[in-house]
């Protein structure tokens, strides 16, 4: 290989086509890896299905549902918690891929990624997009199983949730990356479960409507209202019925932008396992 061989290449900056190839490559690899990790896929599905079939069945009689938007009739509890469980899949997925980016079980792959000459912000954002992308087939598979269980949404809903899920998936992935970059408590998955996943999931509108939460505890109601996970759930809930919840869209969009910028700024591979294991 001679020096002349490279002289034809651009020496400064990158063409939009090169960014596109890079993003496509990162998403493609994440997809291939996902196909090879069947256990992870099964685990990701079993979790919400247990909630749906066992938890929801048990509470069917206890929790009567009044008619609240976007629903137009009385609904079963299973129907109510379906959007929350879709987001639960994304929450786990986002936490898993973000933790592996920071405290790197994927050490080698982050090295390979970060020596790419493209700007680091772009590489990290692309990695978040890739993590979000693999959450989509998981959510749709869950919906297909739920459909067999007679939990059906209007046909338009299955298309309308796609952009909503893309946004919420990005938000949760970026949040996971931001939190694991700044907090030592989140070095392992148990920490993430305790400090992020459980609080976010339970203090939200995933399992019960906020008016019901307010009846029980007004202060918890405010916590739920401030929880971005609530808005991600509501965004997807409305989308599933072909509607847009503008407040939720604004909150989720704003949080996505905020968390992504924060995550990229806070990401530092010289911290965490990469540094410790990287030493000779």
């Amino acid at each position, binding site marked *: *290989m*001679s*020096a002349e*061989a*490279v002289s034809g*290449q651009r*020496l*400064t*900056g*990158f*063409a939009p*086509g*090169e*960014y596109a*190839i*890079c993003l*496509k*490559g*990162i998403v*493609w*690899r994440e997809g*291939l*890896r996902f196909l*090879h990790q069947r256990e992870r896929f099964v685990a990701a599905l079993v979790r919400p299905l247990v909630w749906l079939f066992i938890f929801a069945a048990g509470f069917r009689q206890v929790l009567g549902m009044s008619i609240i938007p976007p629903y137009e009739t009385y609904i079963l509890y299973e129907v109510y918690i379906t959007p929350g469980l879709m987001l639960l899949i994304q929450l786990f997925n986002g936490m898993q891929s973000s933790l592996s980016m920071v405290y790197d079980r994927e*050490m*080698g*792959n982050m*090295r*390979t*990624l*970060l*020596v*790419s*000459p*493209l*700007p*680091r912000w772009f*590489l990290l954002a692309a990695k978040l997009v890739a993590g979000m992308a693999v959450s989509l087939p998981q959510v749709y598979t869950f919906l297909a199983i739920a459909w067999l269980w007679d939990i059906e949404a209007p046909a338009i809903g299955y298309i309308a949730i796609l952009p909503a899920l893309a946004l919420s998936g990005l938000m949760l992935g970026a949040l996971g990356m931001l939190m694991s970059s700044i907090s030592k408590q989140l070095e392992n998955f148990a920490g993430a479960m305790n400090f992020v996943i459980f609080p976010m999931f339970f203090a939200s509108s995933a399992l019960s409507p906020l008016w019901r939460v307010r009846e029980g505890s007004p202060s918890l109601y405010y916590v739920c209202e401030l929880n971005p996970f609530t808005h991600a759930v509501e965004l997807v809930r409305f989308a599933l019925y072909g509607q847009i919840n503008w407040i939720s869209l604004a909150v989720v969009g704003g949080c996505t932008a905020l968390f992504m910028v924060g995550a990229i700024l806070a990401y*530092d*591979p*010289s911290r965490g396992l*990469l*540094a410790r*294991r*990287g*030493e*000779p």
Partner: protein
Amino acid sequence: MAVENPELPPTLAIEGVSHRYGARAALIDVTFSVAPSRFTVLLGLNGAGKSTLFSLITRLYAIQRGHIRIFGHDVVRTSSEALRAVGVVFQPRTLDLDLSVVQNLIYHAALHGIGKRQARARANELLESIALSQRAHDKVRNLSGGQMRQVEIARALLHRPRLLLLDEPTVGLDIKSRAAILAHVHKMVAEGVSVLWATHLIDEVAHDDDVVVLHEGRVLAHGAVARVMAIAGAQDIRSAFLALTQAGKVAHDLA
């Protein structure tokens, strides 16, 4: 270093680089350069700071002190231009074991903005040169350690870099694979690529290489093998290395 053309910036220039992990100093005022089309061995025991230096050159870690330039491009301020010219083989294996050889190579090409068709053509060419064309569609998991390293080197060359960095590339390999990889990389140098090869194995230093002796985070000597031997007053590079590192230890203990 050996031959330096004043008109060309050195392939790799490390200037006054220091790095600490908390209270522990991993690199102390490290300065050396890699001349164009030379095979430069970064020689040091485990813990000398070789991998830390690699992480700094590839902007994996933020540089705390000093400057690193690749073909005159500062790796902090103009990292894209600097990294575009570099191929890296890290010490830990960094291939996706569940993906095929070609899939790994295509992914790497994408990270450099090289599309699938071109990547495939280059991958075939490189795999042919290391006699691994037959294994192109096998999962990496099924390759031997030596073959994985060969694939990693092929991957590092895929975007046609002018500087190749290898961090202990022969660790864990048998003698035959080691020799094959050394010969392969020396061939790259003959074709115009500059190489920085980190190792703790003294017998990987050839008589016409350049050497940088790194010990406990400090550069003790650098230059052509003959020059380093002269500095140490030794007959061969092994005794030169021992003399330098032991003298370094004495100096350190006295300080």
